[in-house]
């Protein structure tokens, strides 16, 4: 187990810089999720941590030791790949024991180590099978087993669940989290799925275009997004963003519709702003803002309603069962303790 420090790391492929100075501190035993849209540089950062890409500038330290020039095999890390990267011509046992085979470990050690990992992951019955003969979830477990056998200081996961179907993904998500709680190994996990990030992480690092937008505990990111990008990325359905002008303690839209300002912050200065309210923080209230219903989507536990207010689309997620027809007017009221205000120009939280 070890800490990981990423200090002002840059990566350029030829003239194209994809990471523009990224710094992350990861505590010993912490589960950190790098999340962001495709092409934001999160996988590149993980591969640099693994030693599969070299570091253009900056420093990466594992366990207090700078590893910029250390080859992958000496970094004491194990990685689970998106496509699992199981050796197709080896049985599950041989796959898991491969690092020990390379290190010329005696057979008894292999059996003991592989047996331990197989027991943790429930793979005992599958050790003689080939990867082809396994289901997606089983392959995923073998890939993790191979990492566990390494007994590394840091686990790296590169979008490990994206090849699984939705149900299995939820199950494996819980398994990975449980595994981390049991082994307490420092883990860096890359995903583009904000729900995975929210449910698994001790700390989320939201990345976009080679920058870190915000890093922090999952609920902090949800409650206090630092900017519009994080606000829109974390949470599902995504936060509603309403454009308007702050004037007289209200936010006024072009058509004159007015929204109440957040009650928690200091008094914001007057001028153009973006008003952020999560769908789940809109309530049905007869005295609320009138919204024109467009689409009603009942999910069972809640009802999502796509509406228009002042010509702008707004989604509401209500615990009540809404039976409104398209075209009807539904009055909604934002929970002013939970709404956000952002600067229109910079996108930063006001």
């Amino acid at each position: 187990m070890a800490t990981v420090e990423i200090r002002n790391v840059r990566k350029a492929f030829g003239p194209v810089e994809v990471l523009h100075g990224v710094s992350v501190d990861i505590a010993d035993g912490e589960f950190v999720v790098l999340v962001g849209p495709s092409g934001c540089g999160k996988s590149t950062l993980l591969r640099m941590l693994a030693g599969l890409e070299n570091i253009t500038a900056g420093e990466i330290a594992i366990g207090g030791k700078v590893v910029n020039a250390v080859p992958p095999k000496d970094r004491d890390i194990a990685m689970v790949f998106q496509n699992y990267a199981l050796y197709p011509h080896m049985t599950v046992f041989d796959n898991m024991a491969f690092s020990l085979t390379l290190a010329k470990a005696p057979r008894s050690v292999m059996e003991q180590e592989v047996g331990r990992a197989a027991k943790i992951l429930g793979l005992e019955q599958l050790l003689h099978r080939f990867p082809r003969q396994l289901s997606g979830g089983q392959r995923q477990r073998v890939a993790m087993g191979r990492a566990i056998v390494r007994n590394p200081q840091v686990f790296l996961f590169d979008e490990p669940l994206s090849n699984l179907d939705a149900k299995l993904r939820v199950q494996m998500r819980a398994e990975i989290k449980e595994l981390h709680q049991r082994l307490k190994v420092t883990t860096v996990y890359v995903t583009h799925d904000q729900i995975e990030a929210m449910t698994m992480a001790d700390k989320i690092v939201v990345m976009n275009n080679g920058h870190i937008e915000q890093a922090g505990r999952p609920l902090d990111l949800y409650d206090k997004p630092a900017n519009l990008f994080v606000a829109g990325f974390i949470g599902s359905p995504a936060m509603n963003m309403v454009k308007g002008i702050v004037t007289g303690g209200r936010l006024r839209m072009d058509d004159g519709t007015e929204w109440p300002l957040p009650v928690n912050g200091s008094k914001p200065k007057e001028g153009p702003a973006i008003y952020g309210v999560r769908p789940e923080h809109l309530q049905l209230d007869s005295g609320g803002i009138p919204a024109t219903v467009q689409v009603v989507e009942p999910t069972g536990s809640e009802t999502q309603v796509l509406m228009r207010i002042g010509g702008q689309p707004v989604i509401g997620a209500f615990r009540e069962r809404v039976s409104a027809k398209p075209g009807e007017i539904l009055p909604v009221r934002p929970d002013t303790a939970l709404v956000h205000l952002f600067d229109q120009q910079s996108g930063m939280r006001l």
Partner: protein
Amino acid sequence: MTVATMTDWTRARPQPGWLARLFDYKPFLVVACLFPAIGLLTVFLTYPLGLGLWLSFTDTKIGRTGQWVGWDNFEYLMEDPQFWSAVFYSVFYTAVATFGKFALGLWLALLLNNHVPFKSLLRAIILLPWIVPTVLSALAFWWLYDPQFSIFSYLAVDVLGIREKPFDFLSTTWPARWSLIAANIWRGIPFVAISLLAGLQTISPSLYEAALLDGSTAWQRFRYITFPLLLPILAIVMTFSIIFTFTDFQLVYAITRGGPINSTHLMATLAFQRGIAGGELGEGAAIAVSMIPFLVVATLFSYFALARRKWQQGEAND
């Protein structure tokens, strides 16, 4: 004359013509589709093979219809040292040339699978020996191996001065045999290299990355990842290569014509020499037919020993 009311009217089903109905008739369709392939195979494969087999059991000569002579031709060949010399050289030629082609071809494929500058140009250059007609490249080698005008001799004797006399490539038994093998390797490398390169490119790069993190050295990655995963393609390419090499004719016939003193005859060139040049069609055919068991063994070996791998099959049982 009655007029159909609207409710009675139904859209007339189009009646297919006799041709359309004929093509809908399955037995006819099967025969029609198979005919071109069967026809070509019969005319160009089955008939020559059958004729060859038939000839090998007759004493046919050019210009004279033969009589059935049973195993006479083969019994004669069993006693013929020249035939056995050709068998030996065919096997030796195939074994050494195949080894050389695969060693160099695999090396080239591994090289080209890396990021090298001018990759596509290099690939095109490597394919050249294969594109050039064999007879043309054989002529080139004939010049390279010429006792007087060989460029190698010129370099060694006149330029570098490390030899007194020109090289003797083709005028004695073993140098001639090795020279032909070298020419065959040169010609066979592109096929092997390009096929194996295609095979290498099917291996997922993440396997190498996983192996890198597992602590492998470059040799271990070759030994545990590249080689086993390349083996199925290697087996197929090797089967083809063995067949092509064993049945080689053009290179030998163009460069040495089987000489000196018949020492470089392959079974194919000897068959041609006896059958066409010598006019003994029956005997030539018998030599050619004698190649079949060797080819069958080579094919079966590749097929059973190398091509099928359990890990390639998807069944859940084992």
